[in-house]
């Protein structure tokens, strides 16, 4: 898995990241000490990685710190940085690992489950449409999924990561990812079916 940046990467048929080629050029420049390239990488991925970090820790400041630390580490180790083919997956993996370390270290002060805290701290929308209610219910149901399955679901549906990227980030096989995805979906469906059937009734009547 450890390949040097200068090697050709194999394109992944299910990889949907359009920017892989550009990323590799950018990373190469970063390794050469190009601060502008570093800034470019930062600006491109910061918000998405921050969003991803909030799936591990509920405190947004902590989430930002995690992502910033990841970038600091990348710059500081740029001389010996070895990134496998997909820069995006690498960044997500680094963020995940760092987040898990933070959680381990500060078990008392940092919440592990990010979801439910958010639900209560945000204002609920004024618009009482059926869709909004359903989405809220979906988020609650997602929060109740077992940790692994929930992470896989979020990474696939919300972070837009492919199954192979998730497999790399979570350090499991692609089949495991697919199974977890399916299980998560089934579980959500089971939890929400009562709501969905009543919605259908409302729409039809």
């Amino acid at each position, binding site marked *: 898995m450890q390949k040097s940046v200068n090697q050709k990467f194999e394109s992944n048929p299910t990889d949907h990241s*359009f920017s892989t080629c550009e990323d590799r050029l950018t990373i190469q420049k970063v390794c050469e000490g190009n601060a502008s390239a570093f800034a470019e990488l*930062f600006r491109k991925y910061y918000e998405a990685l921050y969003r991803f970090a909030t799936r591990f820790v509920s405190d947004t400041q902590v989430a930002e710190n995690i992502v910033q630390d990841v970038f600091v580490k990348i710059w500081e180790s740029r001389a010996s940085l070895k990134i496998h083919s997909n820069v995006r997956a690498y960044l997500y993996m680094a963020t995940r690992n760092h987040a898990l370390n933070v959680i381990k270290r500060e078990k008392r002060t940092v919440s592990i489950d990010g979801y439910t805290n958010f639900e209560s701290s945000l204002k609920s929308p004024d618009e009482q449409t059926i869709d909004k209610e359903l*989405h809220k219910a979906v988020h609650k149901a997602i929060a109740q999924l077992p940790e692994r399955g929930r992470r896989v679901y979020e990474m696939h549906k919300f972070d837009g990561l492919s199954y192979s990227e998730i497999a790399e980030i979570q350090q499991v096989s692609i089949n495991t990812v697919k199974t977890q995805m*399916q299980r998560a979906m089934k579980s959500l*469906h089971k939890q929400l079916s009562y709501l969905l*059937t009543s919605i259908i009734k409302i729409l039809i009547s």
Partner: protein
Amino acid sequence: MNDSDWKLILDYLDGTCSEEKSKDLEERLSREDDLHRLFGEVAKINEAPDREIPKPDVESALFAVARRLGIEDEISRKPKPNVRIARHSFRRRNVWPGKTTILRIAAVIVVAVGAALIFRQTMLSPFQEKVIVGTGQRFRLTLDDGTKVTLDSGSDFRYPRSFSQAQREVQLNGEALFEVTSDSDRPFTVSTQDGRITVLGTVFNVRAWREGDKMSVTVIEGSVTLESMSAQSTDSSVKIEAGQMSVLEANRPSTPLLVNVDEYTGWLQRKKHFKNTSLREVLDQLERWYGVSISLSEPSLNHERITVHLDNKPVNELIDLVCLICGLSSKQNGSSYLLSPI
């Protein structure tokens, strides 16, 4: 519902299903009620967006990190004040288009032909940047190729962070002055709701407000071609030379005429000359420049045509001037004005 059904539905919603399997599924959905219901329910769950979290301040974070690393000086600042910048970059897959209800899904499946396309994701082009200029502000930016664009208040401008090899394309709703760098290999195109301007390297002004009057293009240096968005052939495109202006009327660009270009670029100094323009358009311009709201007691007045020259003066004076011309009086309430006939 067995495992392979689940797998099929999930792959279909992901857009990773083969054509054959997709058609298979669609056909089954129209026949099997249970499967159809399951599909609809899963689709509904699938369309739930990610939860909302507060947006981070990326630039502050970047500079905090840069300071920590001691590379602050090597990073250029992105322009920030008075402008909201939204970034559109391809991130999410599986975006369910719009508010598809389960009933609509049923109807679409029955149709079958082309149905598969509806469930695939819509893709935004990568690296599209958007700038919206606040009221009372003007904003100048430099594009990837060195082209400088000055945007007037309220304008909405979209451009890619880096231009492609073949062309340089941007979109505008509002008013802007373009100073386009020469590049004979890559034409520079400005698209607005009504028209399209193509140029190789030049200085020109575009006025194209969606809610406003006709789109106008004034060339200061060089030359541009202007054509209507609904143009069927290139016959209805005109070439506008330096010192000339053309207006899009009834989907055709008018014959370019020599004008006093200062009249049309006066907005850069907050001066604008309106000739036989609807009162509403004049008031809209004041609203955008000064961040006020101006309404008329009688809606029919919006369509009155006036000729007026606005200078860089306090907004009250300008509103008084407009009132004088139209025989109205104004009542002010904070930053809102109501104009009514005397």
